[in-house]
């Protein structure tokens, strides 16, 4: 296999493949938080709707999509495992109970809507509705704790920055869910959720500021990174996007609001990645360069990803265009 060995390379267009994969892992995490984010948001908004018909509309808005959206989490795990196996192993075993909390939340969130639809009677739907809300709230909350712990390199189970970031992610998923629902619904529901979205946005802003403060105080090793031009720039962009979101929402420009919301998620993930780089596992002191797999499997994975990611976007394009536009008043699956 010497021919394969000599063809293999550590760089692509002059960029280290290790860095490309570091970016890719966070991009995939961003895709998950953005796409499944609106599923979580819709699940949390379930709590604000008592009307049976409205609740069914909320479910109908996400049912064709959420399976596909959740696969981004599977791909995130797979990509991290394939590109940075030691990090995957360290990170997941270090946050042992947290990972199981995330899994528990996702099981509840995945199961509840499926169960909700199975029976028409009130107690059944009441309880599975609650399970849906709890699962949708706890999943982003625990994921936020996980991301904060990863960034800060802590071995503790629950930390103050973790809780703040967790709540911030919950607020963001509600913003996300509202942006999505405003595309997918009509009439009162579309107007009603706007208020929820505004509240969530204000909460998100407060929590962003709080997070920056808490990280600045509790993590001195991140202070210089926090004040680096790139991170400052990203934070500013993030805040500008909240403004764009607010304006677009109040002037009923649904697509603009939705795109701004996507930007919010991706700038947030970029901030995390920029703060972390060049490390990928602070506890073990591993840099991206040190943690990457060897060249041959990395090249195989890179070719695989280069071929498959465009295909995946094609699938999602087909799916979202088939179910584009608002759900009809009587439509439920």
């Amino acid at each position, binding site marked *: *296999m010497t021919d*394969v060995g000599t063809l293999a390379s550590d760089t692509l267009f002059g960029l280290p493949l290790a860095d490309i994969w570091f970016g890719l892992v966070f991009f995939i995490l961003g895709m998950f938080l953005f796409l499944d984010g609106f599923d979580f948001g819709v699940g949390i908004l379930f709590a604000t709707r008592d009307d049976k018909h409205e609740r069914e509309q909320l479910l109908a808005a996400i*049912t*064709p999509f959420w*399976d*596909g959206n*959740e*696969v981004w*989490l*599977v*791909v995130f*795990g*797979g*990509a991290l*495992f*394939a*590109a940075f*196996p*030691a990090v*995957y*192993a*360290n*990170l*997941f*075993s*270090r946050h*042992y*109970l947290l*990972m*199981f909390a*995330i*899994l*528990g939340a*996702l*099981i509840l969130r*995945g*199961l509840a809507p*499926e*169960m909700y639809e*199975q*029976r028409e009677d009130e107690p059944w739907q009441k309880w599975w509705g609650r399970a849906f809300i709890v699962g949708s709230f706890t999943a982003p909350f625990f994921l936020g704790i996980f991301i904060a712990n990863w960034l800060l390199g802590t071995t503790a189970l629950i930390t103050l920055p973790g809780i703040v970031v967790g709540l911030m992610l919950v607020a963001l998923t509600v913003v996300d869910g509202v942006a999505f629902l405003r595309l997918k619904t009509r009439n009162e529901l579309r107007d009603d959720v706007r208020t929820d979205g505004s509240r969530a946005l204000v909460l998100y802003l407060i929590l962003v500021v709080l997070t920056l403060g808490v990280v600045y105080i509790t993590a001195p090793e991140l202070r210089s990174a926090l004040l680096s031009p790139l991170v400052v720039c990203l934070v500013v962009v993030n805040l500008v996007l909240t403004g764009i979101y607010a304006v677009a929402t109040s002037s009923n420009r649904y697509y603009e609001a939705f795109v701004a919301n996507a930007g919010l998620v991706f700038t947030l993930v970029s901030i995390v990645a920029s703060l972390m780089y060049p490390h990928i596992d602070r506890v073990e002191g591993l840099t991206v360069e040190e943690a990457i*797999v*060897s060249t*041959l*499997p990395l090249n*195989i*994975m890179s070719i*695989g*990803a280069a071929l*498959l*990611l465009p*295909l*995946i976007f094609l*699938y*999602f394009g*087909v*799916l979202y265009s*088939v*179910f584009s536009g608002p759900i009809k008043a009587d439509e439920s*699956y």
Partner: protein
Amino acid sequence: MLDPVLASRIQFALTVIVHIIFPVVSMGLAPFLIYFTWKDIRSDNAVYEQLRRFWTRIFAVSFATGTVTGLVLEFEFGTNFAAFSTTAGELFGGPLALEGMMAFMLEATFLGIFVFGRERVSDRLYFLSSVAVGLGTWLSAVWILIANSWMQTPRGFEVVMEDGQPIVHLVDPIAAYLNPRFPWMFVHMQNAAVESVALIMAGIAAYYVFRHHIWKYPIDNIEFWEKTLKIALVALVITAPLQAIHGDLYARHIVETQPQKFAAMEAIWETDSYVPEYIVAFPTSIQDLLDLRAKEIFGFGIPGGASWLASGGDPQATIQGLNEFEGPQPPVAIVFWSFRIMVALGFWFILLAFWGVYRWWRGELYEDDLLHKALMLSAPLGLVAVELGWIVTEVGRQPWVIQGVMKTSDSVSPGLTGAEATATLVGFAIVYLCLLTLYTYVIVRIIRAGPPDGDELTTTESSSPPQSEVSIDD
């Protein structure tokens, strides 16, 4: 508190045993759904729309449950088996990532269209969605079985010590990914999935056919169930004999590549020639219960049978006994019995398939109440056989997690405490029990509700008068 290694192993076994049910149902249903969709689009017979819609509901519930349990499985490599993930990540992580990107994405996105989009897309795109979903489920198995078969017959790698930990480096990707076990596992697994689903279909259909034809209960959708029974029997009569044929070849492959596992499957401790194939074997004392010794126990065997099977035709062939292998042995009793019951079930399915087809050929398919009862009782047995097959595969290779390279006891996360591992094990046992209960409850509800009535169907075909039953499928 349990030892973290033991708790992790139990937890992983539990996760796999529960998870495997859902992909088997998905993989097994996939070719049926593609066929039903094709016929639904191409023929005017409303029964195909009923078939597609009914079995799609079961597919969708299985897929959703499979997604969450599969996520648990993926995470457990990191949480509980971090040492394994660090050591083997270079070879093991790639297939997992490619499964997600290549297979799972395809399946999950097109499932949205397949389940909810019949009224929104063209016939062509709809049919393509069914193919994409089916292809996704099968490609998933390709990557997962590449990862698993590599652990059974590892190739194309070298082990380097880094910071005191062995790290497996990929050297030859073709040798590693297309390792000798992979084709056997894939064929045996996919055929098993279709066979298991055919058994489930036949069992459910037999219940309705039995109630209608034997007990004379009026059942509205009886044509649907009669059709289901026939389609299931066709699938069964093809898959059941195949399963035995490649199962036999697979066993011979195990003799060559994992002789210790084969010795455990046959409970042979001493190397010998002219080894009998024990149909049943019982320990003569309670102490031997977990330590079967084929030669010293009460058993009924075919002389030279095991040698004949292992060598492919020579009853005098020598088989290596377990005593030739150093260190701990796999739990022989579990492997021995799982293998025996799986094989016995396999032969029972062949018998069942030919019995059913024979009755059908004689025009007595709806009259044979004994056949209906046998089919009903056998409905879950395909899944049982799959579970037992995996137990033979996974327990039989112990103490190795990667055959000859890494022991299972060395693969558990180093920092894991007994308290953590026990807590999650207990939590999981409860969650998984609830999950299984709910899944069964939902599936039973779907079955009891039956297919949508002909006049409930929204398409125009259903309003046309029923076709005369001369289609070649009948």
